[in-house]
């Protein structure tokens, strides 16, 4: 079996690359090493049909010469000659580029944060047979739940990830973690009607999975999307589930709080610190230290400790998120929000765990409190939102109509249109069912007065 590189090997590689760069005469250098091992079992068209093992590791080196920045990477870590070659390429890239007047250096050494619930040996030890068993449980439960459903796709995956950073200011760090996930997508068919694909999943940093629940929910959702009706055009109260919130916020709200977007005049939040931007029940943190968070790490992509940053406090905008570069531009401190796409990229400002604090009501109470409304699970087309203005125009696939506090029927092809910043001020309830989804941790939310276009 192809095995993982150890901590000492990884740190050694990073250190070697920085040393080589310094010998070339660069002003500053930073090496980032990433390693990911993933074992995965996939479900296709109702059966477990494939399994894979993917090992991806590499090193990226960033050098600074006279305030110009060069970067190079490789995945060929066995070869000293290649490491030397990419150091040279980074150096030449910097030479060919233009100086950046706002460059004020790489981060300096700080004590890393401590994190919990991010590594579980049991996940590392899972083999493909174990994953096949989990997938079978999920698949069998789904098929037993409703005979009108068909599981179209799904997977069970276990990953071990690690990263190391070294820079010429003495920053040195290593961290590792695990992720386990299972997911199932189903459709339901009856009398010529096919539902949109419905989806459920579990994703955790520690070995805490419920494949029965995932199978059952994925099946229940698809079956309940049958016998759908058209909806009329009007403004209504909408309960958004985590799937929908993630889609809506990812392309709009999260960008709006990034220092990069603020400094480049691309955010509607520019100059609004201290102002009310959301309903007063809304409190949001970017919490890079959240226990078991999908993006919880000791340090960020530049070796700055991750932290918990208040973003919106009872509706009032408090902070933006920064990496080292954007923080230096305003003589502020980085909030530990430099993110990297493994070893392939330079750092970029990105949210860690963007947590919308939950409320007290159960999700059922959110629905039962509505005389009329819509329950929106999945959205299509959120990526075509206007990222600067926050305007969106999306399709709910599907949504469920709420009548007199109960879910009445599924609706087809309802379009929702609005502005995400208006949505923030119209949030009237938050449920108590928070869950992790991508970079978001959020409960269901109730938003008043959303425009629905139907026919």
């Amino acid at each position, binding site marked *: 079996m192809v095995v993982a590189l150890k901590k000492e090997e990884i740190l050694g590689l990073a250190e070697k690359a920085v040393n080589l760069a310094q010998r070339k005469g660069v002003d500053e250098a930073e090496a980032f090493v990433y390693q990911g091992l993933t074992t995965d079992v996939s479900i296709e068209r109702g059966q*477990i049909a*494939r399994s894979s093992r993917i090992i991806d590791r590499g090193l990226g080196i960033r050098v600074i010469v006279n305030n110009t*920045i060069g970067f190079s990477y490789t995945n060929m870590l066995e070869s000293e000659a290649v490491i030397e070659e990419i150091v040279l390429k980074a150096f030449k890239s910097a030479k060919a580029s233009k100086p950046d007047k706002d460059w004020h250096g790489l981060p300096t050494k700080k004590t890393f944060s401590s994190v919990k619930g991010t590594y579980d040996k049991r996940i590392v030890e899972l083999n*493909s047979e174990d994953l096949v068993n989990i997938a079978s449980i999920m698949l069998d439960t789904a098929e037993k739940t409703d005979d009108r459903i068909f599981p179209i796709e799904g997977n069970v995956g276990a990953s071990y990830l690690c990263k190391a950073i070294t820079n010429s200011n003495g920053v040195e760090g290593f961290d590792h973690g695990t992720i386990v996930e299972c997911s199932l997508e189903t459709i339901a068919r009856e009398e010529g009607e096919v539902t949109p694909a419905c989806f459920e999943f579990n994703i955790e940093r520690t070995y805490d999975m419920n494949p029965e629940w995932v199978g059952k929910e994925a099946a229940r959702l698809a079956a309940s999307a049958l016998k759908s009706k058209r909806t009329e055009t009007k403004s209504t109260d909408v309960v958004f589930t985590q799937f929908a919130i993630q889609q809506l916020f990812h392309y709009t709200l999260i960008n709006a709080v990034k220092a990069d977007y603020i400094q480049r005049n691309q955010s509607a939040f520019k100059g609004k610190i201290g102002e009310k931007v959301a309903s007063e029940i809304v409190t949001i943190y970017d919490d890079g230290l959240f226990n078991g968070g999908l993006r919880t790490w000791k340090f960020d992509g530049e070796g700055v400790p991750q932290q918990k940053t208040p973003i919106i406090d009872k509706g009032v905008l408090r902070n933006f998120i920064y990496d080292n570069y954007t923080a230096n531009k305003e003589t502020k401190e980085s909030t530990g929000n430099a993110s990297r796409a493994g070893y392939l990229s*330079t750092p970029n400002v990105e949210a860690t765990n963007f947590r919308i604090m939950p409320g007290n009501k159960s999700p059922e109470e959110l629905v039962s409190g509505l005389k009329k409304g819509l329950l929106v699970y999945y959205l299509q087309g959120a990526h075509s939102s206007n990222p600067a203005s926050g305007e969106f125009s999306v*399709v709910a696939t599907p949504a469920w109509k709420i009548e007199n506090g109960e879910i009445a029927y599924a609706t087809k092809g309802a*379009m929702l249109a609005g502005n995400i910043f208006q949505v923030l001020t119209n949030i009237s309830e938050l449920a108590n069912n928070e869950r992790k989804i991508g970079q978001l941790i959020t409960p269901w939310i109730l938003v008043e007065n959303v425009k629905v276009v139907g026919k």
Partner: protein
Amino acid sequence: MKDILSKTIDVAVQRFHAEYAEVRAQKLFKTMLTLKEERVEAVKQGIENGAAFRVLVNGAWGFASVGTFNAETLTNAVSDACKMAKAASSRLKKPIKLVDTKAVQDKVPLKTRKDPSKISIEDKVNTTSTMSKTILDYDSRIRSCTIDYLDLTGTSYFINNEGSCIEQNKLYVWSRLLAIAAEEGVFTYSREEIGSTAGYEIFDVETPEIVGERTAKRAVEQLKAKPPKGGTFPAVLGPSVVGVFVHEAFGHLAEADLTLLGSVLLDKLGKKIASDNVTFYDDGSIEGAFGSFKYDDEGVPTQKTLLVKDGVVVGLMHNRETAQKFNAKPTGNARAEDFRFEPIIRMRNTFIEPKDHSFEEVVEDMKFGYYLKIFRGGQANLDGTFQVGIQEAYEIVKGEVGAPVRNASISGNTLETLLKVDAVGKDFELWPGRCGKGQTAFICDGGPHIRVKEVLLGGSA
């Protein structure tokens, strides 16, 4: 190189009794640039090597990917793939089979005039800086711009246990321009993409000044645009919107793996789903187009595949597995982003065939409707629900293109909408783009202007 790879295939067949085994090995070089306004964020260069093994053992797939050509590690990886397949096969209901194909031995050289790997980094910095400067100088209301640039060159090897051995040189050049304009609290956003498999010569036609101005102009003109009314309207779709509509609303449903998942096309083969004037192709053989190549990642030659002829579904896009299931010929649509991914069915260059209407004829009978000119993004579901976001649109009033409209978005059901196409233009444009299906593929889509009797338009709040 080929010897080491062939030996790993022997390991799969002899030691693990694989029914099928293939290896794809790649050496890739990339140059990437990001400019934010006039600032060059970083010049980036990468070197990647890796190999991917895919095997069928007891009717199930096993896959392993590693970033090395070290012989011992490759042998370990192919063994991993076989063990993975064996584990997966334990609950298999229907064994996977592949359609027969002819073994191919070929070497595919580049035909470029300007190989991007031979162009200096300074030159690439200049090209992208000119784009940025053109956008920023266009109008004082332009707030910011982001330019991304990527070129990828390298060699791919494909070897399988059926005697295929293909060496292909690869080349992609891509750039994306984003501009944001603002005035009195209104933000507008404009995007252009350039993509080619021909070479750096793309910038001789799509010069930095031309694409820069196109991007900036749209962002500024959208400032005076008004939000559309929500509801059902007749609409004229421009080639860029037609392309995304064909790709998202129809193309994905005609990818045979998705068709088999129960897409609405499953029971429509040989049946009429669109107006008589609608003919669709997916064509991997258009020279220099962003979605073109000679052999796919299963070693099958690419081709021009007819999908809909005069409104009737006549074909789907296949890999060897789905071709076997449908008793069809493979179409060369199996593509993998790189050695980290398994090949899956992907589109290439997908388009509607032009017919006979001039633009004036397409627009002239319309009392009130919308001209949806340039797309922003699109998405579709297996049930045929589609959504296409629009970045540039206009009202059509009494047969004339009128006031600009911003943040429009259309939605509907693919099959219902295709039957409402009542005019197809004689012009033709192909637009480069990138498609995500768990991995990224470079593609093109397009067609002529078309008119649709009615489509649901999402208004603004």
